[in-house]
């Protein structure tokens, strides 16, 4: 049974930031939604409310960076880049300010629909020079994201999970590395964020079907260790499949495709994720099933890749944790 951790960011940020005078906690009216309400209450001197005014917040954070501070900005990821993209570029990314952009509710992890779902942020951030991109896939990564982000000499984009988060790993994020979760030699599965847990749910059923899976989890999307990925691709027979909580254009599917193309690797690649579509509002399991981001979608993708039908059904997969849309740890769910 997977351990579930309640509001891991809340504890992790406070433990990391409290008492460090150069770290400031910035919020844009989503303080409890980003799990920094306790920090606000206990460390008001390090907390700065900037209201629902993200354009100003980006340039203001750039000014704080100029004064030698390392601001951690907390809001939903989508609000951090869609409206204030120009300010993010001019005031943070270009001058390499040490601003840590903590984007909550990545992809479809919200019932808030299109306006709340950052489904193309990785694509956008990958194309921004000087930007580092980290993504959390479990509670341990959420607990280590602050230290990892703050080790970067420049701006960092972080996709942060919140609420009730499973613990899948027992070691912290090591920037620039990737996790090898299984080392089979038939298929390479590459996942990130919440999709890693889905791939783990499918692994035993695939093993029973006689398929040997090599599974990589990416918490560092930029900078990226292309050579390590190519070594893994070289170790499998059939090809590569990616699964991500993001559109396949510009996300980790693209990252793998570009790496293979640049190196002239001729193996097959299947990219799973949001396929040139927005999502609508709904629970995470519903949305993951509807848009093909879950364990069963991965199995079907692997069947396509191997031209085999393993007869795997939902009943054969390891159980998914059932998460209430509304719960004590995130009352509004947005």
């Amino acid at each position, binding site marked *: 049974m997977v351990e579930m951790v309640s509001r891991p960011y809340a504890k992790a940020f406070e433990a990391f930031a409290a008492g460090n005078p150069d770290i400031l906690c910035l919020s844009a009216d989503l303080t409890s939604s980003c799990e920094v309400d306790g920090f606000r209450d206990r460390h008001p001197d390090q907390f*700065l*409310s*900037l*209201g629902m*005014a993200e*354009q*100003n*917040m*980006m*340039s*203001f*954070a*750039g*000014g*704080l*960076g*100029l*004064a*030698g*501070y390392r601001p951690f900005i907390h809001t939903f990821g989508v609000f951090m880049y869609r409206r204030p993209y*120009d*300010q993010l570029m*001019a*005031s943070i990314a*270009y*001058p*390499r300010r040490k601003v840590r952009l903590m984007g909550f509710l990545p992809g479809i992890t919200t019932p808030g629909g299109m306006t709340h779902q950052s489904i193309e942020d990785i694509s956008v951030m990958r194309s921004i*020079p*000087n930007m580092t991109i980290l993504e959390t896939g479990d509670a341990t990564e959420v607990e280590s994201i602050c230290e990892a982000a703050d080790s970067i*000499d*420049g701006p960092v984009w972080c996709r942060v999970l919140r609420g009730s988060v499973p613990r899948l790993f027992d070691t912290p994020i090591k920037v620039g590395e990737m996790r090898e979760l299984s080392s089979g030699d038939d298929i390479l599965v590459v996942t990130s964020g919440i999709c890693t847990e889905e791939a783990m749910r499918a692994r035993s059923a695939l093993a029973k079907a006689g398929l040997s899976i090599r599974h990589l989890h990416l918490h560092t999307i930029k900078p990226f260790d292309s050579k390590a990925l190519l070594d893994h691709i070289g170790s499998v027979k059939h090809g590569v499949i990616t699964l991500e909580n993001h559109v396949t254009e510009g996300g980790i599917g693209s990252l793998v495709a570009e790496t293979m193309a640049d190196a002239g690797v001729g193996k097959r690649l299947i990219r799973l994720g949001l396929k040139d579509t927005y999502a609508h509002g709904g629970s995470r399991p519903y949305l993951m099933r509807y848009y093909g981001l879950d364990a069963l979608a991965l199995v079907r993708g692997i069947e396509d890749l191997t031209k085999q039908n393993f007869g795997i059904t939902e009943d054969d997969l390891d159980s998914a944790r059932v998460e209430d849309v509304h719960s004590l740890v995130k009352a509004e769910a947005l």
Partner: protein
Amino acid sequence: MRNERTTEEVALGIRRRVFEHSMRNNGGYLSQACSAGEQLAWLYNEELNLGAPTLPMIPKPFEGVPSPSNPDYHTGAGYNGPAAPDFDRLFIAPAHYALVAYATLIEVGRMAPEGLEMFNKDGSSVEMIGAEHSPGMEVHNGTLGIGLSTGAGLAYGRKRRGEPGRTWVFMSDGEVQEGQTWEAVQSAAYHGIDNLYAIMDVNDQQCDGAMSSVMEVGDIKTKFQNFGATCVEIDGHDISAMRDAVKESHEGRPLIILARTNPFNSMSILEERFPRLHYVRFKSEEERARMNVSIAADLGVEPVDYSH
């Protein structure tokens, strides 16, 4: 570091340099020199507390943008002196005023006159739209509305560190059409950022023409006050009015000085081009010659020999 000349002389010098440059280059930001000459002259010649320049009088060529692989990267802020706790900092929010700002640096002895000859030349750091590596610049302000927010963040940080130096932003009135300007003012007021100062060139001009014909912005002073700033409105060509305005008490609030200006002040012939004054490129050799004679007479200099 103080200039020995009067601020009036510096303002006239700024206009002469911009005029001469624009004549030789068949156009330039003439109107901005007309409206903002006194403001930038006053800031640099009297009001700002700046240290000696830390960069060479003749600007170095473009040395690359910030990146992890460019360790020698520096901004153009060194022309305003070192970023030390006691000293003031200045952002030029409307980066297209760069030509006027460079002329100011020359007039107050912070940049060599040769610097202006590098204006808008390939490979030069003296860029047409002031970049953060351009002389006198510290941050990118090419998109309007960013400057005051950045100033607010820097001023907040400096206040928090107990630095006595002020953070100044030179602004243009067109920026009040951007929502970010209002976000910046409300955040500065809410957080009591009273070491933030702005002086705004209210010349009622924007790219498409007079602001009133592009997007009416109403009573800016009342708006700024309602958003929480202390705001003083003055004649932007009256230097003594600036000296008084900056003394306005503004505890817990940013101080914004609205300097109402004439976009063809001291170059009266530019009125012919009203309301399209944003960038004056001469339409014909005849116009260029006529403006050359007229503006030279207004400024008390000889017409520019631009034939070679």
